[in-house]
């Protein structure tokens, strides 16, 4: 194997004749700053020229090259992004070329705010025609970084912003594909809630009772698969609270998860109440908590049952949150008076 040659050292702007008309601008004009960053020569040189360009107000092709250079060295340089955007507008530059570059940069620097926001600015200019391709691109990134906050938020913005039924149409399948990879991916659960409940009513989903039923079955099945999954329990709570349904609606489903796994599994398949799977580690603290909420909600003498469940969480199943469970006990008993 022949080793790849090392990249040539960068040619500094200060040595390039085509940049000799620009006056580079040092960051600090006065004495040495406290806590300086020990930059590379390449970075210092490029940002000196960027400061010079910004001061002169130049907006030209070479500004696109310079800002790209600075962004590659530090993708969080928001001023470089901002100035690049203004330059693109001033030049009326072809945005499709810019998007091709952004596809590469988003892939490389997918944890920075700026790469995603720049895409958003471009999309707002390019309009709805670009949205479907964007959705596909975002999907590819999420395959690689399944919980990337910016990428999920960008997807949600894209859907809400263009609000086109064609775009919304594939979202539940997309959630399923992400959930099949990892049923504990909270970002996917949140996305499902966003799509089903929080962005208006989608095509074919006008019958809300049916939708709630569908979502309850969906989340119950996923709980039965892996009962100790906080994301799924939070979704269950979310669906009930959002639709103003009492927690007791699902009490029969929850109860088997609050006790030790029964020796013999029952043969009766109840789709409404899927039982814990064979590998379940029970009792499940989230189920015990849920059942306590059911009893608290009922009020009266049932509150004492809730107190017993909270006690078991405090002393045995979830000791780290002892103070919180004791707070819940006090709170419920105070409300009883």
């Amino acid at each position, binding site marked *: 194997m022949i080793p790849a040659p090392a990249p040539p050292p960068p040619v500094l702007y200060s040595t390039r004749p085509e940049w000799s008309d620009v006056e580079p601008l040092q960051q600090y004009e006065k004495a040495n700053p406290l806590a300086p960053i*020990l930059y590379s020569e390449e970075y210092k040189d490029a940002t000196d020229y960027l400061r010079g360009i910004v001061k002169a107000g130049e907006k030209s092709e070479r500004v696109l090259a310079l800002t790209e250079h600075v962004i590659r060295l530090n993708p969080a340089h*928001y001023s470089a992004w901002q100035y690049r*955007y203004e330059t693109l507008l001033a030049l009326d530059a072809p945005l499709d070329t810019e998007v091709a570059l952004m596809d590469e940069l988003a892939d490389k620097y997918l944890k920075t705010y700026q790469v995603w926001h720049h895409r958003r600015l471009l999309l707002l200019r390019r309009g709805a025609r670009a949205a479907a391709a964007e959705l596909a691109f975002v999907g590819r990134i999420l395959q690689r970084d399944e919980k990337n906050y910016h990428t999920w938020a960008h997807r949600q913005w894209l859907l809400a912003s263009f609000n086109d039924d064609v775009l919304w149409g594939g979202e539940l399948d997309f959630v399923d594909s992400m959930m099949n990879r990892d049923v504990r991916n909270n970002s996917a659960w949140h996305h499902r809630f966003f799509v089903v409940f929080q962005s208006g009513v989608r095509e074919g989903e006008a019958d809300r009772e049916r939708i709630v039923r569908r979502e309850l079955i969906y989340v119950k099945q996923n709980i039965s*698969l892996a009962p100790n999954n906080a994301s799924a329990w*939070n979704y269950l709570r979310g669906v009930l609270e959002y639709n103003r349904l009492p927690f007791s609606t699902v009490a029969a489903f929850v109860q088997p998860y609050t006790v030790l796994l029964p020796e013999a599994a029952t043969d009766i398949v109840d789709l409404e109440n899927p039982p814990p799977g064979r590998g379940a580690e029970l009792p499940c603290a989230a189920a015990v908590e849920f059942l306590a909420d059911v009893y608290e909600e009922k009020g009266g003498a049932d509150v004492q049952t809730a107190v017993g469940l909270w006690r078991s969480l405090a002393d045995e199943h979830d000791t780290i949150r002892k103070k919180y469970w004791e707070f819940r006990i006090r709170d419920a008993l*105070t409300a009883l008076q």
Partner: protein
Amino acid sequence: MASTMRPVPIDSFPTPTSSTQAETEKVLLQHFPAADSTNATPTLQKNAHMQFLIRNLVQGFPQRYTSQDASQPWLMYWTLQAFSILQVGLDPGNRQKAIDTIMASQHPDGGFGGGPKQAAHLLPTYAAVCVLAIAGKPGPGGGWDEIDRNKMYKFFMSLKQPDGSFLVAHHSEVDVRGIYCLLVTATLLDIITPELVEGTAGFIASCQTYEGGFSSASQPYYAPAPDSDGPPVLLESPRPPLGEAHGGYTFCALASWVMLQPFLPSKSPSQPKINKKSLVRWLVQMQGVPIELGGFKGRTNKLVDGCYSWWVGGAFGLLESIGINPAVVAAEKPDGQAEGDWDDIDDSLLNRKALQEYILYAGQHPAGGLRDKPPKNADSYHTLYCLAGLSSAQHKVFPSPARQKELLDCWIATVDDGDKDTEAKEEALRKRVFTDALSYTEEEGTETIVGGPPNRVNATHPLFNLTITHTEAIMSHFYRQVVPPRIFKRAAAAKT
């Protein structure tokens, strides 16, 4: 202890989340000392952390910090505030250097940038003003009187959006971090007004997710104006959160909510609301179990990380400000309940002891500085937020009504009696903002210090993450007030 060190259940159904979780548990468990070990009493390596911070400050930050070039005021803030928490102040020479360095990032059109000649941005504006709160002073060269507050206010207003939110900078994104930074700055500098924060509380409330925590932002929907010339009308629904509940955003949203309280009409039916019960539940659920050493995570089914010691652990310090007070519930408990069950001075909802253990056992890098989790390197960001989290777990700082009364009694009127009604209203608001912010007081006798007194660090203001002393100094300067000395003790007063 060992018996409670159970792995998080996988239910015989492994996924990428449970695999990384199991790996993390393995690493963390190695950092928990055996019962017979000699380092069973953990020590905060104050000296090593000081050396780490001083090295950055004096020699400079290594080249890998180039990624923070647009966050230079943050580097300075993380370092200086970490000193404050470690009970160390700067010498006059470095203090002046800090002021001069920060002032070089003030933008000619208002606000501060991430470095000199960078565009103004809400995040470095917060960090710069906090550095000035720590290091600055009144008078020429002191920084305080060189902050251009008029231009800063105009800069803030230029970022305002019709849904009550703010861009973090021109052509940039909206998110609740920026709003938090703007509100802290405006509160400290006496430039917060009803005009500035109109609609902002509604925006914050719309970021709360079904899980109870808050997301980065929400998406507004508008209806066309009833008369065709007017601006579009913001719809109350849908207004979906963008992104899931997250520790950093939740802290920023909750602190913003607290700072906005003086500006909310008290009895209006259209007043925005947050779900406090689900918020508390989400916050407590973010604390890791014993095998995670009680550290905090930032999202459901993610890993613990030292920085959430502050963003989530510190958020508990704001609950009393929104009316959640476990101590009051405790005091009202019914007769006949066994006293011994919860008769304990510690009425916090988080496990303060476990959080301190996470920071002490897993958060400290052996070579100095603090970190996300082992085996990661230390950095300035994690050093501050681990220390701030440690501080909030050691001290209980609460909004004291008695302290607020003292401040109100000492208020120096800045408008004459008989002035116009609007001026009187303005004055009342300023008074409320000032006394709300400075009413935070450490409750006597509630320190809980794992490892004993040598591990004690300073208390920090739960809204601003500055010491109470620095907060008082800068606010009394800008509000032109004289703050009375602190003599009040809640422990005594609460029993009456």
